[in-house]
């Protein structure tokens, strides 16, 4: 059974691109179109890796990331953030949420600013799943 990679992004073109990269590497891509759907699919599918956008309808990647990392059941799933939002803003937002709600959150396994090229995404996916 190939490892599952959950792609959470509201842009269907980005999902298609990411899915094809993941498939090329021999993994099974599964897709969600917003943060809420993404959270449901994490619980249902138990993915081995998540490629997560930040700006989405219903729930942002920032809140989803925090929800995952504060839940012991999902905290160990590696996450690659793939977004137009800068890494600096992402980390600052996590710090702000930690200040309000408590509980510091670790940085994601990888952070790629959009647009991602296939090579960069492939290498980060492999790094997360194989430690390569």
């Amino acid at each position, binding site marked *: 059974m190939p490892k599952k990679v959950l792609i959470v992004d509201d842009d269907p073109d980005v999902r298609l691109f990411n899915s094809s990269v993941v498939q090329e590497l021999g993994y099974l891509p599964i897709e969600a179109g917003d943060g809420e759907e993404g959270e449901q699919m994490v619980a249902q599918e138990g993915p081995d890796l998540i490629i997560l956008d930040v*700006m989405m*309808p*219903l*729930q*942002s990647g920032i809140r989803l990331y925090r929800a995952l990392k504060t839940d012991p059941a999902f905290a160990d799933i590696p996450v690659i953030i793939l977004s137009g*939002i800068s890494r600096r803003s992402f980390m600052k*937002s996590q710090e702000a949420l930690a200040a309000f709600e408590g509980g510091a959150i670790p940085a994601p396994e990888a952070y790629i600013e959009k647009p991602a090229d296939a090579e960069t995404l492939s290498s980060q996916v492999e790094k997360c799943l194989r430690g390569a």
Partner: protein
Amino acid sequence: MTTIKKMLFASRFQDLTFDALEALLDLRAVGLDHVVFLYVVERDKVAMYRGLGYQKSEEVKLKEVANIHFIEWAEQLFEQGMEVGVHIVVGTLVQQVVRAAGMEEVDLIVIGRPTRSLLEQLLSGADISALIRRTRIPILVYKQLPLEVAEKGHPFTRPLLATDWGSAAGKAQAYLMGLKGIVEEINVIHVGREKDLDSLSAMKVQQYRKTQREKLQAICDAFEAAGIQARPHLYVGDAYEKIESAAREWRASMIVTGCSGKGSWQERIIGSIPRLLAEKSDVSTLIIPK
């Protein structure tokens, strides 16, 4: 207590800019922690053209340009610990505002001043009345605050409540009552119709004034009991003109009005008071649908 936890900010960028958003961030005092951005690529900009077909490349370009704006804004909000959502879609403005507001279950819709002509609006169905008829969510039609008002606060600091004594106006009153944390002072206005006074004696006119003032004072007393300063004002004449001039006279940061949403055909063509205020007034207008 009125809660504004989630706000839909439907921007076309030239009408609603980041400073408008910043002016509304004081709503965090009444629970705001989630802003949903909406940009609608109007269908006619990417429509089918003879020989060219659907303008897909134009759609992609317009969406990416909107995305660039929203990324800048979203970063500012994310860094303050706020939640941000984004919808960038092709369609008609009213339809997409209603769709996004329903999907996201927002508490407030913020839009810029409608810029289309009356005829264009009637043809496209994109006018403010169409929006009011299709949603029960309060709608803030945002206009840039005059400098002397902006210096004193945000749109909710000094609202002017226009009442016609109807149930929609009562709902608007209750809505403002729940915003105690951010509303500092309210001016309450009723505009009497001149024709109602035509055949009255001086004493009857005075009696009319007294009765209307008492009703206004009762509203003000309710606000004061809730901890919000309030002043009553009675005007007589054309409702739109008098509300507009009272807003300037009392340096209102925003006009608040209820709306039944069931305008007559005549109203739909000529314009209801909320619609006129939304479209013509230079002051931001908060419309509370019934």
